[in-house]
């Protein structure tokens, strides 16, 4: 009786190959049913996300179990297991436990320390419980993985700091302006980046969005999309004293905002804080604008720099995470050995 993990992940294969093995939510119940019909498999859980497809199981024969599970994962398509060679991995017993604990804690994720995966592991477990493919061992193993994930997140900095450009931008806006609910945003330039930024901020609940673009039609399109207001490009300076956040991503070859234009604006705004995001390359806003009181200017490099710092910090926490995970897995394994010898 052994524990086993067979799977494929973002670390071993690109998305084109992972998606061929992906189980959708609809497929999962029947797949779990088929899993129990595989000889040598006593208990099993299928974890299927966009970054990984893995089967966790309890098997009676290691060699046969591994083979059968690989074929199961490859949907028994002839020759596929051979093709996937080197991309499919297998972990046994303590390694399998350590792997699950790493996955649940977000340590093995593409974005190190992300927390979404824990919810996905929980759901995978619940699906298996519903399909009655879990027993005492899988039940205990998964409960321990949730506990370990919680402990790792609490006792290390693995989940600290924002690690995407948009989440960093939103967190900065909140740090400067407080809540974003009654804030007004101006978008200069109607490119893809602006659209993304507008969407993120709308999701955060900003009260209104003003869009200005060299081509007025394009500005209107974007304004309609976000329930905003389109403004002719020559007129946008008139609206600058009404907004709290300006996101600039025009194709202008030179600065469109300088210290000279923003300084009188701040007086007009009665020094209300202004958050400027310059995501254009080449830049739209003269960096000297940041020297003005109550103006906070960030360009794309600043945001990416913060992301990088946070990622480095999280990676620095990995050693601590591993040692916690190892401790927890040892404890689980001693329980597992007892169960095994009593059967």
């Amino acid at each position, binding site marked *: 009786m052994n524990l086993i993990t067979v799977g494929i992940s973002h670390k071993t294969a690109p998305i084109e190959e992972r998606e061929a093995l992906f189980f959708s939510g609809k497929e999962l119940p029947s797949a779990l049913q088929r899993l129990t019909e595989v000889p040598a498999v006593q208990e099993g859980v299928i974890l299927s996300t966009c970054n990984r497809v893995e089967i966790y199981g309890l098997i009676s024969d290691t060699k046969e179990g591994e083979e059968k599970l690989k074929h199961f994962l490859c949907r028994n398509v002839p020759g596929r297991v051979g093709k996937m060679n080197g991309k499919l991995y297998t972990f046994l017993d303590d390694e399998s436990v350590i792997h699950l604990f790493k996955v649940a804690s977000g340590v093995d994720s593409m974005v190190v320390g992300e927390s979404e995966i824990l919810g996905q592991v929980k759901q995978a477990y619940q699906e298996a419980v519903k399909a009655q493919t879990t027993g005492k061992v899988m039940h205990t193993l998964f409960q321990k993985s949730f506990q370990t994930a919680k402990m790792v997140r609490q006792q290390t*900095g693995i989940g600290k700091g924002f690690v995407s450009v948009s989440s960093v931008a939103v967190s900065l806006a909140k740090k400067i*302006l407080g809540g974003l609910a009654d804030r007004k945003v101006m978008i200069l330039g109607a490119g893809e980046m602006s659209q993304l930024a507008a969407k993120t901020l709308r999701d955060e609940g900003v009260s209104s969005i003003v869009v200005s673009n060299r081509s007025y039609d394009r500005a209107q399109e974007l304004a309609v999309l976000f329930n905003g207001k389109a403004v002719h490009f020559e007129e946008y300076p008139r609206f600058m004293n009404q907004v709290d956040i300006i996101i600039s991503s025009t194709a202008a070859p030179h600065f469109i905002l300088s210290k000279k234009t923003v300084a009188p604006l701040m007086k007009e705004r*009665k020094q209300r*804080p202004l958050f400027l995001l310059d995501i254009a390359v080449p830049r739209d806003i003269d960096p000297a604008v940041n020297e003005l009181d109550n103006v906070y200017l960030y360009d794309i490099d*600043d945001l990416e*720099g913060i992301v990088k*710092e946070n990622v480095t910090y999280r990676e620095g926490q990995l050693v601590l995470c591993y040692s916690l995970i190892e401790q927890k897995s040892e404890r689980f394994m001693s329980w597992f050995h007892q169960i095994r010898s009593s059967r």
Partner: protein
Amino acid sequence: MANIFLIIHILLSCLSYLGFSLAFFSAVVFLWMERRLKAKHLPKLGFLPWSLESLDNFNTKTLMGGFVFFTVGLIAGIIATKQRFGRFFIGDPKELWSFASWLFYAGIVWVRFSYTLRGRKVMLLASLAFGMVLFTFIGVNVFFQGIHSIR
């Protein structure tokens, strides 16, 4: 019987010190956060739970509260002086420092509400003013002799 104005004077002065202390505390946190946000060098473990906006609000409220208590407390003090010494002002060093502090805080309230200044500069002024209040509260007793001295 203790002079009622003297009691009001002491009570309100203490309350005003409390307000100014809270204003000072929020000013220091604001200045630290503002500096890091401007330098784009954010603390690794994240900021304290407040935003610049909320610190600014808190600072304004506590400073205003402190200023109102300070003003009324000062008037009560003047009346108490009149009752005890027959004059409104006796030139006590703490008296003089208090008037100077009051003028300083009045200046801050004015620039804040006329929107001449906001943010970092107001916080710097609030920190300086608190230094002056501290000196009025403690330093004057140490360096000068007067009716407020602890004998």
